[in-house]
């Protein structure tokens, strides 16, 4: 169980068996990276991961689309995580999120290094953006062509965050289990008891 200082919610992720391919045509699959909520509790810019997950799920839910969450254990490569999720989704639409926040919306028939939408600058991703990512993925799943989520750019985010991003990636890579495959995740989010 993981709890972050800056939220009163707790995140409980329980790993189940090997994730299967869904058959609901409007289902989106969200793939989490190996250390998301396991070692890491917040993104590179201190957004609590429990809130990230909540917003993505809410974004899909408000479009009336079901979001299934899986843990990709065998890679920390975002394109592989997002593409792996897309291949499991009944709709063929997947989302990948790394612990540091970097995210991608993918479609199963696209080349792995391509994507529908990529959000490369993790430090600039706030809760509003994560909700929009969930919402857009849901719209793609319904066969729509939503306006891409606006991508922000800040040329000074590199000097502040590039080295930390490298460290976070190296740490995430330590949690990769090459034969771990992709497993179902049961997500429960609850409010912490008042102390």
């Amino acid at each position, binding site marked *: 169980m993981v709890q972050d200082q800056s939220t009163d919610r707790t995140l409980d992720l329980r790993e189940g068996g090997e994730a299967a391919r869904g058959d609901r045509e409007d289902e989106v699959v969200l793939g989490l990276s190996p250390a998301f909520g396991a070692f890491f509790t917040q993104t590179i810019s201190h957004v609590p991961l429990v809130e990230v997950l909540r917003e993505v799920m809410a974004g899909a839910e408000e479009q009336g689309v079901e979001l299934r969450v899986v843990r990709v254990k065998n890679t920390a490569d975002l394109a592989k995580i997002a593409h792996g999720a897309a291949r499991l989704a009944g709709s063929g639409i997947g989302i990948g999120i790394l612990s540091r926040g970097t995210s991608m919306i993918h479609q199963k028939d696209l080349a792995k290094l391509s994507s529908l939408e990529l959000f490369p600058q993790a430090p600039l991703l706030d809760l509003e953006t994560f909700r929009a990512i969930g919402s857009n993925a849901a719209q793609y799943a319904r066969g729509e062509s939503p306006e891409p989520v606006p991508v922000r750019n800040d040329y000074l985010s*590199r*000097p*502040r965050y590039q*080295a930390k991003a*490298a460290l976070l990636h*190296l740490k995430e890579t330590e949690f990769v289990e090459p034969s771990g495959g992709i497993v179902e995740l049961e997500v429960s989010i609850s409010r912490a008891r008042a102390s």
Partner: protein
Amino acid sequence: MTEADPQPGTRRSARTEILENRPVQLDGFVEEWPEVGMIAMESPYDPDPSIRVEDGRIVEMDGRERADFDFIDQFIADYAIDVGSAEEAMALDAAEIAHRIVDPGVARADVLALTRGLTPAKLLRVVESMNVVEIMMAMQKMRARRTPANQAHSTSARDNPVQVVADAAEAALRGFAELETTLGVVRYAPLVAIALQIGAQTGRGGVITQCALEEATELALGMRGITAYAETISVYGTEAVFTDGDDTPWSKSFLASAYASRGIKMRFTSGTGAEVQMGDADGKSMLYLEIRCIQVAKGAGVQGLQNGSISCIAVPGSVPSGIRAVAAENLVASMLDLECASGNDQSFSHSPMRRTARTMPQLLPGTDFVVSGYSGVPNYDNMFAGSNWDPEDYDDWNTIQRDLKVDGGLRHVAEKDILATRERAIRALQAVFAHLDLPEITDEEVEAGTYAHGSEELPRRDVREDLKAAQAVMDRGITGLDLVAALEKGGFRDIAENLLSVLRQRVSGDLLQTSAILDHQLQVLSAVNDANDYAGPGTGYRPSGERWEEMKKLRHVISAENPEKEVE
């Protein structure tokens, strides 16, 4: 804004408060982690140098048998190292080799005779024995071209060709020898590359241009003569990162030969930090891996390399001795007789002091291109994600050149001349677009573009029409010669002649020589006819004559003749 805030209720000193608010605190610094390669140089996990040659073939290199070589080892052993001189050169102590490199009394050619026989681990030991002043001393002698130069970025956040043509013209007028662009929306490339070329030839005939794109389109624009060189051909220091981009040293060499076959100048790009950033550094230091990249460039037979960390600069910049490592990687490129376009081209620090200090190891000794490139547009318009230098720093740059009498390639230009050149460049593009039946450039855009600082001040273009026209440029097979004809018909004969002279280089092939640029007379200046002859005090390149007079000019200099006035 710091991550380690004090405990609530803890009193802080007033001085700490001030220090906490300094821009340098916004930069990221991390602890070394050598086991995964998060270390700039001097790692305990880098291999020890060794070599064994049998029957004219390297059978062991840096402690690894040929049977265990990865493809980078193999490529370096077979193509980058001169087997004939390897055993003798490798037998010398690394510090002794470093002495010869730094010593002005040892000729550059004699150093090259040694360095061509060194393995990656040995080259690493050589530069590890140098401090940063010795690295600069060595760079002063080992740089390939005698005359240093500079390169600019000319891009637009809106991919607006009007902005690019005006800023390219200004950058060329200010002294840059090469200009490069890239895109936000890739489909805009043909129009922006045309604008860059015409701007360059308006500002100063002979400035050469490139457009950074995925490799096939970049090559296609070069073959059509819309651009004149290429630089964004990346190589990496571990097999895992190389293959992640579906590439090998052989595929990159094949691409290099495609450029050479058409007389197009090109260089590779690499830099410290890329491998660890990708999480595949194989437990080796950033500098060791970069030296492998430099030798891959050498083995591929390309004339030069852009290095100096480049887009990963905040990674070496975050660890101890990282900026020394970056200076060392530039030096190794020059030690292997490659043209070195030495970085300083990406946003690096929030601190103006760190930004400046980071550039000194290239600016003071001079490199083939001190900055590669200097943003010729405000950083918010820089589609290479921001540079270490931008137009707001022009007068600082000119002043530093004048203070230290070092040639960073730029000059102060009076505002009236800049305005006239910007306007003429946009007018020329307006005529070319009209002649080629591309979307109109209005007089309102000419006016706005002449006076603008950045894309925010320009009228919005009809992007959909522009993108259709960009596709049409490719479909209709428009080439550099069509641009020459359009310029001539539009009444811009001198610009047409400049562009034709640049295109002629494709036939003569002289731009393929190491470190080639075109001078003011559109003559090639390269390591062949302008070889670096530094041999100690009083020798080598020193600003003098007209160039030094030009460097003395600044925006505001009080007149000695009449101290109530400023020098014009």
